[in-house]
């Protein structure tokens, strides 16, 4: 969707490139003119750098949030929940329902058994290490099959939990942010001590905000008799739709199934307000930056009327003057863009968190400034250069030859 | 009668890094009240520098200057500014009017430095504009005026505070012959009729001819003084 923004760039840049190649005003003239007015150039470039940096960071935030929800699903897996429960937290699945599901013919199997995991999803409160008090975090009880079914989760330290013991494994992202979550430490929950036996990395997906343990242990601790959901994998991904239909149609079960990818993308709505806010901020700042760039370029043109008149007298055509000043604006803004993209790097790796409005539990993610995002930032500055430079360049092209004679 | 301007051993050098470039080297000059002097000489002779020193907008590196009864070396920058406001009127080659102010407002500018009230300022401005014959153009902006008219506004501005001395740097340099003639006639009137002391720097021999005394400078030194006697003048 953001690519729609960049579409008008292509023909504009194409024309500019053609103008530059076709003996137009030499680009070195523009480059050197920029440096003749050092303060103006540097300060405008600095302002653009700030806007681009914010743009890149905000998009990284936006991506991080989407990623945290979307990449959590596989196209050949389905989540089975209580009908209309919407989120795992509010769902419940009885033991006999689980038994019925586990023998469904469409499910996949591997060497260890059927790929179906009955799971329990609860919220507990943990104290943050930054002194910010208690925060709700999600705890997932799962069966060993559940670990096998989530390929994006890798163990980085220690070992997986023993499903018959009171043990927990934690995401690397959370280990430092909450008290008692380091490997070897333990937390107290529902009257039991749970030692942390392993640390995992879920690649930025939703599972990076969950503590994992064995489902039976969790249910015992929480005195629950019913699971929350079940995660299943289908032997043939093409049969996913019919599996969902069958579950829906089965009146005994009163359950519904969703493709895992769908389940998580529905959750993305929770992150939408932040994304909207971020986009709004960027849009507003861009406007401000374009005004600033326009101002600088108008000044540049006004100060060089004699030069421009001379160029015309020498034989350069109006459209070539237009292209030339457009290039100058581009160079100015791209300088700022590159600086801004590099500035954004300072945010790379910073961990932050927000709350999932459905479950009120912590969702952590890290700012990841990828080369792709930086390139987007630079492209954005090119857009600003084109927008901000056009009118002044137009003005420059209209300056009559006679100006060359005036002082 | 005491001369209004007394220069003793005036020297001025510019420094480019460690290099000293002398422009004026030990000049003596006396100008009587009501004098009309033209400073002339080739480029680099120091005539503009001398004008600047006398006008109080530059300081000599050596020597003393007494103008209008004040030792300029004894005045600090702020005092010098106040002194200029009272005693000095400036006329430039390029008029240097403020483009966003009307003719009236341009002439009023120096009066804002005084404690005069609005009505008094208005009276003075109108009087000055009347003197330069531009009462029908008080509301016009510089871009709406011809070069000659702009210079006349500048002259009105220069005299509105009733200074004793007028300094002019190439006042006719940007004007055509007819307007130049008008401006010079005006200056003569200011000198003859109102007793203003006028100091002129010019290349233009016709303009110089309007002065009573021509001072020729060569390489920062006074070369010769020429008295101009014109039959049409006493």
């Amino acid at each position, binding site marked *: 969707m953001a690519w729609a923004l960049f579409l008008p760039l292509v023909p504009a840049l194409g024309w500019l490139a053609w103008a530059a190649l076709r003996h137009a005003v030499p680009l070195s003239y523009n480059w050197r003119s920029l440096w003749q007015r050092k303060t103006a150039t540097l300060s405008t470039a600095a302002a653009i750098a700030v806007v681009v940096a914010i743009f890149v960071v905000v998009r990284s935030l936006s991506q991080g949030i989407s990623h945290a929800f979307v990449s959590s699903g596989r196209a050949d897996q389905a989540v089975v929940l209580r009908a209309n429960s919407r989120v795992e937290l509010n769902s419940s699945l009885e033991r006999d329902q689980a038994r019925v599901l586990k023998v469904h013919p469409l499910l996949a199997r591997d060497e260890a058994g059927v790929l179906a995991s009955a799971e329990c999803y609860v919220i507990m409160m943990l104290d943050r290490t930054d002194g910010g008090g208690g925060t*709700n975090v999600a705890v997932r009880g799962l069966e060993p099959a559940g670990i096998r079914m989530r390929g994006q989760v890798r163990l980085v330290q220690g070992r997986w939990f023993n499903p018959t013991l009171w043990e927990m494994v934690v995401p690397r992202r959370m280990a430092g942010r909450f008290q008692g979550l380091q490997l070897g430490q333990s937390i107290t929950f529902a009257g039991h001590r749970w030692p942390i036996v392993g640390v995992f990395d879920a690649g930025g997906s939703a599972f990076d905000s969950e503590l994992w343990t064995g489902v039976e242990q969790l249910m015992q601790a929480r005195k629950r008799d019913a699971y929350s959901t079940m995660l299943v994998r289908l032997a043939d991904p093409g049969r996913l739709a019919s599996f969902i239909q069958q579950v829906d149609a089965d009146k005994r079960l009163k359950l519904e199934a969703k493709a895992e990818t769908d389940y998580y993308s529905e959750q993305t*709505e929770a992150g939408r307000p932040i994304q909207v806010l971020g986009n709004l901020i960027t849009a507003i700042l861009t406007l401000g930056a374009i005004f600033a760039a326009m*101002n600088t370029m108008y000044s540049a043109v006004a100060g060089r009327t004699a030069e421009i008149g001379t160029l015309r007298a020498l034989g350069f055509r109006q459209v070539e003057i237009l292209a030339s000043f457009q290039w100058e604006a581009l160079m100015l803004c791209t300088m700022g863009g590159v600086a801004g993209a590099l500035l954004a790097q300072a945010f790379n790796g910073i961990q932050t968190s927000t709350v999932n409005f459905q479950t009120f539990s912590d969702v952590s993610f890290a700012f990841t400034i990828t080369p792709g995002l930086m390139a987007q930032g630079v492209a954005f500055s090119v857009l600003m250069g084109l927008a901000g430079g056009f009118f002044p360049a137009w003005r420059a092209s209209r300056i009559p030859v006679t100006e060359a004679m005036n002082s | 009668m005491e001369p209004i301007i007394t220069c003793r051993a005036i020297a001025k050098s510019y420094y480019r890094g460690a290099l000293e470039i002398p422009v004026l080297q030990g000049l003596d000059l006396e100008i009587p009240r009501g004098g009309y002097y033209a400073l002339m000489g080739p480029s680099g002779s120091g005539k503009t520098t001398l004008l600047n020193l006398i006008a109080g*907008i530059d300081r000599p590196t050596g020597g003393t200057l007494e103008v209008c009864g004040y030792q300029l070396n004894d005045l600090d920058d702020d005092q010098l500014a106040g002194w*200029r406001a009272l005693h000095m009127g400036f006329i430039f080659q390029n008029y*240097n009017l403020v483009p966003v102010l009307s003719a009236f*407002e341009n002439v009023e500018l120096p009066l804002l430095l005084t404690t005069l009230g609005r009505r008094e300022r208005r009276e003075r401005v109108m009087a000055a504009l009347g003197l330069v014959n531009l009462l029908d153009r008080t509301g016009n902006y510089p871009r709406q005026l011809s070069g000659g008219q702009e210079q006349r506004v500048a002259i009105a501005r220069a005299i509105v505070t009733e200074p004793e001395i007028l300094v002019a740097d190439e006042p006719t340099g940007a004007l055509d012959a007819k307007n130049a003639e008008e401006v010079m006639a005006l200056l003569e009137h200011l000198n003859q009729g109102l007793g203003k002391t006028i100091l002129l720097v010019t290349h233009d021999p016709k303009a110089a001819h309007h002065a009573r005394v021509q001072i020729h400078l060569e390489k920062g030194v006074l070369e010769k003084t020429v008295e101009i006697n014109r039959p049409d003048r006493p």
Partner: protein
Amino acid sequence: MKYLHLIWRSLLRSRRRTLLTVLSLGVSVFLVATLQSILGTLDSYAHNPDSANRMVVRHKTSITNLLPFRYGDWLRQQPEVEAVMGLQWFGGIYQDQRNFFANFAVEPEYLVPIFKEEVRGVSESEVRDFIRDRTGCVVGQALADKFGWKLGTVVPLQGTIFPITPRLTIRAIFRSKRASDEMALYFQYKHLEESVPRMQGKVGTFWVRVRSADDVPRLIERIDHHFRDALEPTLSETENAFQLEFLKMLGDYATMIHTITAAVLAAILIVTASTMAMTIRERATEIAVFRAMGFTGRQVLGLLMAEGVLLSAMGGLAGIALAVVTAGAVRANVGTSIPWLSDFQLQGGTLLFCLQATLAVGVLSTFIPAYQAVRRPIVEGLRSL
């Protein structure tokens, strides 16, 4: 202020430049004003003066755990206590998830005594009707207006946490000081208890109204001490503290917003300084002429500074005006996605800060180039012809 026309006209020297600078400034100030006001609005929830007399009792471990209903009896016996109400967050959906609003199951007879400040404009008979009707509910005016509900309308809710779909009849519509308080629905706790077996004798929170705000800390201690060793221990806190916990869950928005604010202000400063530097450099000759005429360096500096400050002030006011004009739109848009922001209002303190910031930008950005210009020898300015 005889120099005012001079200062003002100087800005009109290049109308385009002045306009672009004002626009640039205005846009940035608008952003800062809106963002900081968002923070301020959220903050005000944790500092609600009306909440001074109220506190919340919940399960010590997690807000999602339940407390025994009988705790309410003990709480009512405390001498400082004026009223106690069991409240359970229901979290039901009306038609579509996007129509989100807060809905709670409460003990109906205590609703008005506890929320005296928020639930207003209901008559005694309406309250009686609510208490008498097991499937009745009370809604806020703003909520009713949004969906076109009236007294007697039946509102079906779809439970998400609890697997029931209650059909509630509106028995009263109340008005509040804050719009966000009116976006709420309260129905009978007994109805929930009857329909959901595991809620029998259990409730999520107790809201307690205390006679005097000074009694709150003491009461908190006593309550938590009393239930310390129970199977369901309690955590009591003031209502403001309770709200603050929710806000903190929003994450580090404060830091992000402050960072963006600082970055934007820095950018404004740089851009304005550059503009002023450009302007002043172009006026080198004019500055020299003024000084020749007799204006002291300080006077010229003052004129230039006044110009810079006036320019920034215009930009600042433009930004504030824009923020004021769009406040309603912001509230409508962001208010639906982030429930607390349905009360979004520009904060007076924020607007003042923005004005001060722009004035500071004006002063700082003009000072250096103006000071340098005034320090230069007069003849240098005149020579540049």
